[in-house]
């Protein structure tokens, strides 16, 4: 597949994924653009991957986590600004409240939640992306869900086609 074809087909879904991951469109735009730039430079390798889209999404996750880890001790980093959400309905207000609390989670916890419950990956797959043990994925997911006050017993994995 040519790079241009991949971008044309996947640009929107990559951007959506990045916004869900980092919670902020401006930052997501930078991450997606940076990652696509690097993918382009290595397209011989990236384009030959068994699952190109999974490979690029993994680059996005690593960029998101790696960038933040690199900065957190050197400079105060402004938390993402969330776009104003209408609160005319309880349903919408609750969704906005969860989004706001997602923004407060440690990045790794948030990445676990997004990969596990937005991307629908298994614990093993998430562990592979994040470079940690499946037990670490489960403990991070558990902590994240507890922080968001979401009941584990009611959780079901809902894969989302990106």
């Amino acid at each position, binding site marked *: 597949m040519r*790079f*241009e074809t991949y*971008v044309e087909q996947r640009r*929107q879904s*990559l*951007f*959506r994924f*990045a916004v*869900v991951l980092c*919670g902020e*469109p*401006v*930052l*997501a*735009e*930078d991450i*997606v*653009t*940076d990652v*696509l*730039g*690097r*993918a*382009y430079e*290595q397209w011989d390798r990236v384009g030959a991957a068994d699952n190109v889209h999974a490979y690029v999404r993994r680059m996005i996750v*690593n*960029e998101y986590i*790696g*960038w933040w*880890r*690199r*900065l957190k*001790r*050197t*400079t*105060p980093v402004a*938390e*993402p600004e969330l*776009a104003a959400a209408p609160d005319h309905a309880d349903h919408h207000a*609750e*969704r906005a409240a969860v*989004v*706001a609390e*997602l923004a*407060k*989670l*440690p990045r790794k916890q948030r990445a676990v939640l997004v990969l596990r*419950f937005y991307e629908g990956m298994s614990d093993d797959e998430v562990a592979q992306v*994040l*470079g*940690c043990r499946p037990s670490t994925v489960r*403990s991070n997911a558990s902590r994240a869900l*507890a922080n*968001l006050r*979401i*009941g584990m017993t*009611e*959780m*079901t994995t*809902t894969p989302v086609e990106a």
Partner: protein
Amino acid sequence: MRTNQDLQGAFALLEEQADAYGAPEITTHPAKPVRVRRERGHLRRNVLAVAVTAAVVGGGIYAATSMRSSGDEARPAGPPPVLGPTPSPVKLQFTFTVGPVAGVTVDYHGVYRKEQSADIMWDGDGGVYAGLDVYTPGGFDPKQAMTHGTKVTVGTHVGYWDPTHHDAGETVDGKDLFRPTLTWQYGRNSWATVQFEPTNVASPNLLDKAITLAETIRTGGASTLRLPFKIGYLPPDLVPELAYVSQSHPGSGRIGLSDGVRPDDSTLGGLSIEAMENITGSETTCSKRVSVQGTTACFRNLHKYADEPGSKVVGRELSFETPARMVTITIDRSHLAMYSDDDMVKVARSLIFAPSLADYNTWYDARTVLPH
């Protein structure tokens, strides 16, 4: 208690925000993919961050998917250095210990001129995290803690508990963030703090957790700080200013060095060296290329606002990578006239790396990494 539907609803709301914002326009021009630059406010990502930078291409303004600066940007001269006395070296070892405390994980983090730090995690309690900072004598002003906190006792020491500690400017969605903080005096004019993450504001028993932890902290001893590289060459008069590590994935270590020239950015010192596990892939755009350690290294200018190449140059960076690691050598603006590109290359070529960035135990005792 919320449900899966609430979480999926939050994801859906973020998708709506993504769609409303619109995906970035990507095109390949002239030799690499670029995006059309949108009008927006400053995105204040640190100068060290991987960032999108702007370049004028063919009369239109585009952002190049590279790092920081346009490809042909020259090295700036920098201001004339203002020399002063060489500072005393910061000792590259931890002089405090924590615990053990059941259910608590301690990740020793860094040593700085005024404090040493560790990251603390309480297991099995819904994810409670805190930062521990142990300050050198005179390195911390307790005024805010005394003014806003409630007096408590930490062992035999006086302390202050402020469950609504707020640092100016820390906000999310326009609302202030609060970091519950225990501050206590562990010695003469010497203070330490345990500061919880904002997500833990409503967690139970924070004060008990903090005091239990604080009472196990011992100072005056020494334990090893490790770095993932040794340095064979440094320009003269540089002494350690700080060092910090991340032991968990991705592993990384950085040392910052200072001399008699006051750095513009005291968070890194005048010259700093970092090695980090390579998890993000190659970035090859640069203003000048040299051969280092069997690979190609890139020079770039660092700008005050990473996405605005017209903004003030705040430093210069030389970076290179292998499949296993990314290495960055940085000088701040006040040292541009002090250290040449050749100096930076000489430092880069002199580095010797620990066998595995993923295994902290293979790293070097930080006291042994300097050439002098």
